[in-house]
């Protein structure tokens, strides 16, 4: 007996089922079906509808979510909250405050930083370079090569 072969009693039952009368399509079924087909063809003639598969739908949702996440992060990172606005006590008070923090900061640089703060820029820490070092590096140009070579 093969794997799919039925025992005798089930085989007889199968024969009985196969022998029972079953209906043929009625006379007007083809007319009905073809009328429905024509109607659907006419309705979808301009743009036949195609349903998205499950994977296509999932991919579309994922793409939309990623797009909105990306967009929201771009917007958030480009939004200034103005939590550190311009100094409230005027330019002179801000310059004085900067001098208290950085006593060696030149007056001109302090005013420049305050002006930048007032303009809405962010304060960029700048190295406080010693004047002697500035002079030393300033003399390292091609024209001053000989003078610089004599310096220890």
């Amino acid at each position: 007996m093969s794997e799919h072969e039925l025992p005798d009693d089930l085989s007889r039952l199968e024969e009985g089922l196969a022998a029972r009368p079953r209906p043929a399509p009625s006379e007007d079924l083809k007319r009905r079906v073809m009328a429905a087909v024509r109607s659907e063809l006419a309705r979808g003639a301009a743009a036949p509808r195609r349903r998205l598969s499950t994977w296509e739908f999932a991919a579309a949702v994922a793409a939309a979510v990623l797009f909105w996440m990306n967009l929201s992060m771009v917007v958030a990172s480009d939004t200034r909250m103005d939590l550190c606005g311009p100094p409230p006590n005027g330019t002179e008070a801000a310059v004085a405050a900067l001098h208290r923090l950085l006593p060696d900061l030149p007056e001109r640089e302090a005013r420049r930083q305050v002006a930048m703060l007032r303009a809405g820029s962010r304060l960029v820490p700048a190295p406080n370079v010693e004047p002697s070092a500035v002079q030393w590096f300033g003399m390292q140009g091609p024209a001053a090569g000989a003078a610089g070579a004599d310096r220890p």
Partner: protein
Amino acid sequence: MPRLARTPDDTPLLAGLAAGREDAFAAAYDRFAARLVAAAWGMLGNRADAEDAVQDVFVSMVRSRASLAEVEDLGAYLFTSLRHAAARRWQRRSAQRSRGDAALAEAAAAPPAGGAAIERADRLDRALATLPREQREVVALKIDGGLTFAQIGAVLGVSLNTAASRYRYALGRLRTSLEES
């Protein structure tokens, strides 16, 4: 027993269906309608519902014709669609509905046969009506639709062996139901 005639190459017909050619749909109807109606009747137990389900199959095929180019076995595709259409109609029906009187009417309208044959067919129909939908589907696909176990497996989304064992189990349940009646 009717067998699902599978032509060597359905490509021209599928191309016509995908292109929305009316003659292709007519050809598909001529080739499959009898088996589809028989299988739907086996699932639903009612001729009117069976024919409506077959109409649903063709309307659904028109709507999804853009994807027909990817179909390899038109018969399996149509019977899969029929199974879904029948399931929708099955769910709409109340649990009270059985083949009962409808089966008698169908038997009366069937080709002439002996009284004993009608009585036996009626008993089988009543017993079939007691099967769960999944088991009735596999019996209808095999006996009324004439599908092979491989095709039934494709329609139900199960393996050939699972389809065969489900069929055997359904017949066993049917035999028990007949013995009890």
